[in-house]
């Protein structure tokens, strides 16, 4: 997800959208991970899962961890040369993406169908364009 977002950094900036990535861990983990995959994005760390739960995200069930889509996504990432390092956080947490306006209202949200499911950049840009127009 991070490298995918990094690829569209110019388009997001042009659309007036800032991108913030959150994960569990410490600042040094955010610096290591984001520094290599997405140096232009703002990465923030939190020590526990409280923000996830507040946004309606929780741990995946077996079907969300072991689906065909998850295996395909893993193989695709490997083909692109992504080699998982030491995992900091909780790989069982479900991913989610939200677009928040300047008033702090959620204007769009995407809850992954499994742990590998993320919105596309095109989808994010389409929604973003509609709120910044």
């Amino acid at each position: 997800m991070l490298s995918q977002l990094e690829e569209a950094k110019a388009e997001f900036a042009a659309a007036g959208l800032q991108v913030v990535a959150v994960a569990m861990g410490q600042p040094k983990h955010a610096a290591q991970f984001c520094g290599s995959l997405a140096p232009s994005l703002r990465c923030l760390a939190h020590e526990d899962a409280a923000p996830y739960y507040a946004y309606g995200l929780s741990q995946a069930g077996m079907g969300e961890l072991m689906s065909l889509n998850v295996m395909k996504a893993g193989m695709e990432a490997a083909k692109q040369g992504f080699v998982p390092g030491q995992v900091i956080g909780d790989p069982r947490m479900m991913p989610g993406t939200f677009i928040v306006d300047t008033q702090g209202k959620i204007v769009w949200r995407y809850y992954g169908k499994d742990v590998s499911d993320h919105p596309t950049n095109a989808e994010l840009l389409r929604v973003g364009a509609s709120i910044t127009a």
Partner: protein
Amino acid sequence: MSKSDQLAVGASAPDFTLLDIEGQSVTLASLWANGPTILTFLRHFG
């Protein structure tokens, strides 16, 4: 994940204080106040 726990469009986004890569505290509200924000929750670092 229960769908009933999911946040609806139009709901207030929960604010949290997190740490940036320098270890400085950052509130989410201070970020979205500057402009529309894509907020993505990763499963993990690494």
